[in-house]
């Protein structure tokens, strides 16, 4: 069966419509089916990356521009120019400059997943409290007050619990 629209290609899309009891069959080729619906490719990672460092650059004061990572020698401009972070220590060195972009990209910029084996035993009350407080700040900034209230209660509860143990 050939496409009923162009009459050239093999019909590969077969649509049955039923409008007010009138059943109609349409047989279209892939190209004509696409034209009628305009399947559009979706945004990918590169688009996100394209806008990733955009705003961070302007907000960096001049003095910080000459700061270099002790781990790999990168300055913040190197990271912006390449779109790649030099080493693990860069994150510590340039955290302040990176955070706005990280939050734009990931929302909450606090890790919530797995930890390496060596540190598994370590999720201490302090680090958990710190993470919760960070989430609270983020929630307040984002004006998500319900979430903020819930977080505040959890922090209070943990602090109370801590006192009992002391």
């Amino acid at each position: 069966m050939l496409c009923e629209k162009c009459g050239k290609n093999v019909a590969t899309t077969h649509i049955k419509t039923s409008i007010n009891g009138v059943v109609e069959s349409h047989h279209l080729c892939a190209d004509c089916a696409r034209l009628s619906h305009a399947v559009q490719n979706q945004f990918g990672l590169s688009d996100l990356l394209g806008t990733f460092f955009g705003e961070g650059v302007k907000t960096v004061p001049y003095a910080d521009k000459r700061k270099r990572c002790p781990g790999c020698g990168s300055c913040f401009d190197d990271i912006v120019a390449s779109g790649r972070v030099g080493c693990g220590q860069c994150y510590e060195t340039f955290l302040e400059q990176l955070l706005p972009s990280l939050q734009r990209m990931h929302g909450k910029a606090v890790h919530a997943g797995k930890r390496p084996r060596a540190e598994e035993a370590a999720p201490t009350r302090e680090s958990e409290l710190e993470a919760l407080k960070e989430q609270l700040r983020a929630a307040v900034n984002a004006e998500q007050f319900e979430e903020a209230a819930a977080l505040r209660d959890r922090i209070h509860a943990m602090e109370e619990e801590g006192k009992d143990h002391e």
Partner: protein
Amino acid sequence: MNKWYASLGKEADTVVSTRIRLARNLAGIPFPSRMTAEQRRQVNEQVRDALFADTTLGKQFKYLEMETLPDITAEAMVERHLISPAFAARREGKALLLSEDESVSIMLCEEDHIRIQVMEAGLAPEEAYRTANAIDDALSARLTYAFDERLGYLTECPTNLGTGLRASLMLHLPALEASGGINRLAATVSKIGMTVRGTYGEGTKPVAALYQVSNQVTLGISEEAAIENLRAIAAQAIQQERALRSSLDPDGIEDAAYRALGTLKFARAVTSQEFMELISQVRLGVAMGVIKDLPLATVEELMISAGPASIQAAEGKPLDPAERDKARAKLARERL
């Protein structure tokens, strides 16, 4: 040993495969774009030794230095989804740990020091994650990762910070595509930090109705939650695709599927693009039970073996495009 794609997974009518990827880096060594040749060698060997030191896992892997491989072999690995195109293109100082059934590949010194990738046929994100997680545990027992309490696993590209997890599904959605529903799916997906992309296409035109759904956000979300989101999206896409398939005109489907099968069975030269469009029709026919005596696993295996490099690797010599199209037609005739 059978390769992973020769078996049939769950929800195979709509889900072609599941892929889990974990990005990891070693502490105290610059990320790959700023590494010296000596540091690359060090990282490759340290990771290899850490994996081989694990008595059960170690036995399942072989270690390949990428620069020793011929171009065609490396490109065929890309077509089988074992490695990334960038990893194949610049192989100097890079290494690969590959499991026997090719379901697990660990790229060393790609964009990150370690990229653990697990493939499963059909819908199996939990199973694939479990495998990747076990390898990650084995490695981290012997290596110190670059990890930060607040930012999680540190990665060369900040898009992977946190869990370093990319969970994706390859979906076959011909009916949803034909109905124009992909955009709606993409809109839903983007609301929960995920993305949909056409695969196998050049530029904006997706080929063969194959779409990849994956998570975009890796920081502030647990591995379990990311996988749950992926499952939720998959459930929605599968349900929509099935509903649309059942509303299609069965006579038309049968005609199209057999025409495609007929062409593949008798054609003497088939380009890669034409092949993908035809096999997509055949896949739909088999999945809907219109084509009866052809196993879906055969279709899957053929789909993954018909790329330009795989064709040449199978023939054992470089072929020009016209020769490849002939070899591809021959392969299809033999398998179908």
